[in-house]
């Protein structure tokens, strides 16, 4: 097992460095693709292994892979795989259309691998402080990916991103120090000093009842604010639409579909500790309030958006709100629904961001009003884009529908009808707003004669190559399949995670 974990971590590292050293474009593309495929295979292997075992522990408990970690690793690996495939198509167009230089190209391939590596490391770390530092490293690597094409806008987005998220992580570190303090002062009155001198979540979770309750309350709020900055929970979400819209499409996808989940994973580890210490009501209420507010902000953003990628960035905010609401409602349905929603989010976001990338290279703009008649110019992309949008807003059969439905069910079951009503209204608003905008882009014109791009050049018809369509088709098939049928191993696995979180 040691060797497999080592290979798992070395694959992205080696492929990133090799891409930089050999300076061969095709080689860089394919080695990244191979390494991401290898990572995906290993992450599925973890999943199968953990169906029968409790957890994988290595290096004196420094590395622990339990079901929850393996699940997050799977989500990251899926998106890494899709993004490395889509990069082949996207970066060639970036060179052709936007004049990307060789240096920028190889820097991109170095950083995309390092970014994936930092995200893959995060869930397997046992020490909470190390986890936070690793999240900080994801910020550093991805902020340089945001400025792959150096423009004033992308610099602005990267700067906002790094300043806001770094200060958020500082708050989370403060919260972690308070968690440590909470474990160290309880004993003073009882004559025992330093009961829980550890920051490992396994230790903290096992001895949660011994922590000082007042400090844990404050510490958990600090963690939600700090890591919530990274997750994109409102009102700390302000960096998210900028970074997502200015980054290249494969990176927007990795930011949205895997990074946010990786940060949410951290919140749930603290959630578990705080819940065991204070009773689950306290952290759940915080998650519900912040979740509802986040959904509200996300939907308002969706309604106001004028560019494609910002639209889906706000949709990410909305999804993260739904996920935290699901965890907040708790219970088996709520938690299961939130976990399933994480998978659904990771599958449906790539379709939309990759589709927006294709449109960007066809129409040379992200402006929704300027994009018309995609159905005539790129029929295959248009089909996948519309189908993806339907799965994204939660039309059945799709994984998003199942996740949202389960969360709604939990709110009914608990009798929180107020939450159910607000959630339904907001979901319907998002449904209408997204579909109306997609509709105007895909159809929009009556015939195919009058379609021009932003520079008033006639658009040549035809889709891009397979590398631009496959990354959209694979998650679409998966998300529709999961909407119809959840395989029983996956169900068992998710039930195992539910037990880990709210045990």
């Amino acid at each position, binding site marked *: 097992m040691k060797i497999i974990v080592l290979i798992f971590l070395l694959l992205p590292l080696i492929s990133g460095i090799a891409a930089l050293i050999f300076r061969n474009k095709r080689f860089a593309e394919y080695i990244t693709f191979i390494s991401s495929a290898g990572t995906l295979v290993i992450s599925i292997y973890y999943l199968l292994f953990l169906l029968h075992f409790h957890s994988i522990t290595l290096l004196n408990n420094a590395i622990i892979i339990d079901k929850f970690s393996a699940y997050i690793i799977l989500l990251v690996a899926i998106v890494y795989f899709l993004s490395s495939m889509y990069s082949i198509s996207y970066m060639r167009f970036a060179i052709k259309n936007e004049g990307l230089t060789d240096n920028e190209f190889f820097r991109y391939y170095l950083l995309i691998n390092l970014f994936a590596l930092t995200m893959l490391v995060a869930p397997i770390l046992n020490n909470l402080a190390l986890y936070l530092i690793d999240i900080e490293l994801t910020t550093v690597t991805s902020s340089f990916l945001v400025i792959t094409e150096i423009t004033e806008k992308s610099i*602005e987005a990267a700067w906002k991103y790094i300043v806001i998220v770094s*200060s958020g992580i500082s708050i989370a570190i*403060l919260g972690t120090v308070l968690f*440590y*303090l909470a474990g160290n002062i309880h004993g003073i009155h009882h004559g025992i000093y330093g009961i829980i001198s550890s*920051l490992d979540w396994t230790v903290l979770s096992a001895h949660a009842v011994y922590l000082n309750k007042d400090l844990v309350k404050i510490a958990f709020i600090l963690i939600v604010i700090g890591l919530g900055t990274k997750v994109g929970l409102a009102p700390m979400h302000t960096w998210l639409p900028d970074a997502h819209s200015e980054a290249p499409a494969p990176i927007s996808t990795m930011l949205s579909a895997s990074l946010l989940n990786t940060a949410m994973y951290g919140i749930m580890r603290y959630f578990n500790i705080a819940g065991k210490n204070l009773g689950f009501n306290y952290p759940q209420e915080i998650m519900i309030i912040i979740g509802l507010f986040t959904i509200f902000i996300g939907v308002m953003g969706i309604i106001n958006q004028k560019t494609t990628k910002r639209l889906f960035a706000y949709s990410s905010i909305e999804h993260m709100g739904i996920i935290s609401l699901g965890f907040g409602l708790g219970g088996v349905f709520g938690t299961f629904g939130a976990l399933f929603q994480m998978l659904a989010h990771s599958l449906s976001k790539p379709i939309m961001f990759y589709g927006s990338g294709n449109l960007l290279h066809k129409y040379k703009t992200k402006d929704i009003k300027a994009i018309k008649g995609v159905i005539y110019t790129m029929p295959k992309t248009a089909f996948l884009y519309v189908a993806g949008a339907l799965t994204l807003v939660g039309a059945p059969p799709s994984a998003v529908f199942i996740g949202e439905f389960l969360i709604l069910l939990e709110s009914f079951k608990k009798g929180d009808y107020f939450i159910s009503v607000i959630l339904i209204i907001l979901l319907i608003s998002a449904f209408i707003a997204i579909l109306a905008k997609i509709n105007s882009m895909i159809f929009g014109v009556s015939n195919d004669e009058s379609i021009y791009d932003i520079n008033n050049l006639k658009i040549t018809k035809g889709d891009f190559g397979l590398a631009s369509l496959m990354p959209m088709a694979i998650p679409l098939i998966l998300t529709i399949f999961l909407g119809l049928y959840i395989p029983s191993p996956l169900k068992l696995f998710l039930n195992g995670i539910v037990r880990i979180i709210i045990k």
Partner: protein
Amino acid sequence: MLGLVLPVYLDVTIDLLTAFILLLSFVMLSSKWISFYIHAYGIQSFLIFILTLILGIETHSVDLYLVALLTLIVRCLIVPYMLLNMMKKFNIKEEINLSIKIPASIITGLVLTVFGYFLIFKLIHNFVPDIIINSAAIALSLVFIGFFMIISRYTTITQILGLLVIENGIFLFSVILTPTLPLIVELVVLFDILVTVTAMLILSMVMKIKTGSFSTSMLNRLVG
């Protein structure tokens, strides 16, 4: 330091050191020139180094010696050197754009300090001696002042320094309240500071080359 009875002269020393640390963050708030900020940050880090060293000697903890040494190297030498080097390279003499003027900044800083004191007092007065409450309150107010610096000054370098002041505050907090914090945590936090500051410096250099200024007040294209 919890559960530890210190001799009186050490109490006084620690009080004095933390008071000076707070004073230096007010020096930053009251200055219009970037080099003042950097020097004040360097001296503040040096005082934190001395404090850590004293605590290390008092608790006979080898870990704290190591942390103190690394603090000296990273926070006190490398980071200010990098920032000053950057200033020299781009020949920056520009003043800082303030969104909140200096007198108001100082008053806000005072309010934040008092707020930090009350917060800490309410949180931990049950189980720690007064001297620790004072130092921890100052550590927390450093965090607040750092945030205030980020939002009230429109220059990339002052925003970096704001983050560094926050980190200093958290470090002071953790050294005073939880000196038994695992060594690995302090080490990676220092590593993280280095990486983040380097990344932010590179970003601001790119910004300077592209837009001709370190000012962040023109970063207003992405809205909504």
